[in-house]
């Protein structure tokens, strides 16, 4: 088991965003978390990555509890997320966005940096190489020196993916990575997600485009009103009566 979520509950004032949610994510698989708007998908991501404290329940990663950790500590354990709304270091160059993402791969401390240790320069050169590889992987090498906010929307979303990858995730949580993209861009990103999985990264995906979800997932979990109403392989989910009712009946 890679990630296990156990009996999570989150409330916002009168809104119960998550009610007793439990699910598991298999290692090196693509698991999708779907559900109508407001189902609680982003909230689940926020709890897993330490942005929210659940009222009840816990999150285990490779058997160890994540609950109570701060977001950066969750990242240190190899769990990296992207955000639903475009989220970049906007006034910084494309290359530097990825360089920031590489933070955890650097080792140099405060004193070495102040004293101008030779290894600092070596590490910088090495990191720059990695950053350029990652940019080439997502197809943004030609944008390297541009300011992130100057990129067109689709490329900004690709850059978000690059920043996430830079943090060297073993579990990558993607919150609607292709929303707002055109079909060609969507196909590119889905191809990238497959290749990331092939490199041994576990993926938890939130996405509204059912065709994509059903095409790419090994496992699908359906949330509705903060509860898990179904889980299983895509074929099973597509014909699940409760899932159909949730999507057709709206809220």
């Amino acid at each position: 088991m890679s990630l296990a979520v156990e009996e999570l509950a989150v409330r916002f004032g009168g809104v119960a965003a998550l009610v007793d949610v439990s699910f598991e994510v298999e290692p090196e698989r693509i698991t999708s978390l779907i559900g109508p708007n407001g189902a609680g998908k982003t909230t689940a991501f926020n709890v897993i990555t330490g942005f929210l404290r659940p009222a009840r329940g816990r999150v285990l990663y490779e058997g160890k509890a994540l609950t109570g950790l701060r977001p950066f500590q969750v990242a240190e354990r190899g769990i990296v997320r992207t955000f639903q709304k475009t989220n970049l270091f906007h006034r910084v160059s494309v290359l530097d966005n990825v360089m920031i993402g590489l933070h955890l791969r650097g080792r140099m401390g405060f004193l070495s940096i102040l004293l101008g240790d030779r290894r600092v320069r070596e590490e910088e050169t090495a990191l720059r190489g990695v950053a350029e590889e990652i940019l080439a992987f997502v197809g943004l090498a030609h944008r390297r020196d541009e300011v992130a906010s100057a990129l067109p929307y689709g490329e900004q979303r690709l850059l978000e993916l690059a920043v996430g990858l830079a943090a060297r995730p073993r579990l990558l949580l993607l919150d609607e990575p292709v929303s707002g993209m055109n079909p060609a861009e969507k196909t590119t990103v889905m191809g990238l997600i497959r290749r990331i999985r092939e490199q041994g990264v576990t993926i938890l995906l939130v996405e509204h485009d059912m065709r994509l979800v059903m095409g790419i997932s090994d496992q699908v979990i359906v949330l509705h009103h903060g509860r898990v109403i179904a889980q299983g392989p895509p074929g099973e989910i597509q014909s699940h009566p409760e899932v159909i009712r949730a999507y057709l009946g709206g809220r």
Partner: protein
Amino acid sequence: METFLQHVVNGLILGGTYALLGIGLTLIFGIMNVVNFAHGEFYTLGAYGAFLFLSLLDTNFFVALLGAIALGILLGGACERLLLRPLLGESIETTMLVMIAVWIAMQNAELLAWGGVAQSIDHPFPQAPLILGPISVAPLRLFVFGTAVLLILGAHLLIHRTRLGKAMRATFQDRETAALMGVDIHGIHTLTFAFGSGLAAAAGTLLGPIFVVYPSMGDLAALKAFSVVILGGLGNFAGATLGGLLLGIAEELGAGYVSSGYRDAVGFAIIILVLLLRPSGLFARAERVG
């Protein structure tokens, strides 16, 4: 016990004016999201305005007070219109810098206009204090407190009972939605800033005759206004009123029983303590992640 009561009464009288200052600042903060570092200068402006009308134009004391408040309102409105409106949508740091600049410019303009010597404002009230049981109050102070209370009530009615107040509250709640519903955000901002500055000027005209008037008097007033706002909660009208009274009493007691040298430290201490102990309680708009 008697001195204690006397301190509390003195504190309340000062506190009424602090509340006026705080209400002005908290409205500007809450509705416009502007940290108005020039707030104290409008207080100074009020005091000098009264001095100007009285000594140079030889008007009646009460007319002078009204004139000074009008001056504050006009200059506040102009300040918003010229300096803040073009920056609508800029970060809070940017407007903060501009207001710091206004503060420096206004204070030094006042120094140039009046010189560094302190002035006093003549008033028509008798000097002999009124003795009410164990406490004594100067008639002037009673007038100041009464006027402050009236102004606070007036502001309260304006915000809770008028259409304008309703639009102000809507803007405070959610600017985008208010704009969609047809509220003239620009107009609200100008009026809010003018109104807040008017309240600061009123505080200045009221305290001017009690103390002396000098160009940097606004610095301490601004400090007090900020501590009142922090004490009462961001954008919280009732909080600012209570906070003002509390600060006045705390200062009088602090000066009376601890040391008068640290009187002004009370304001700083309040800001630091409240922000450090209950910062989450003061974040009126927590951001959503994701």
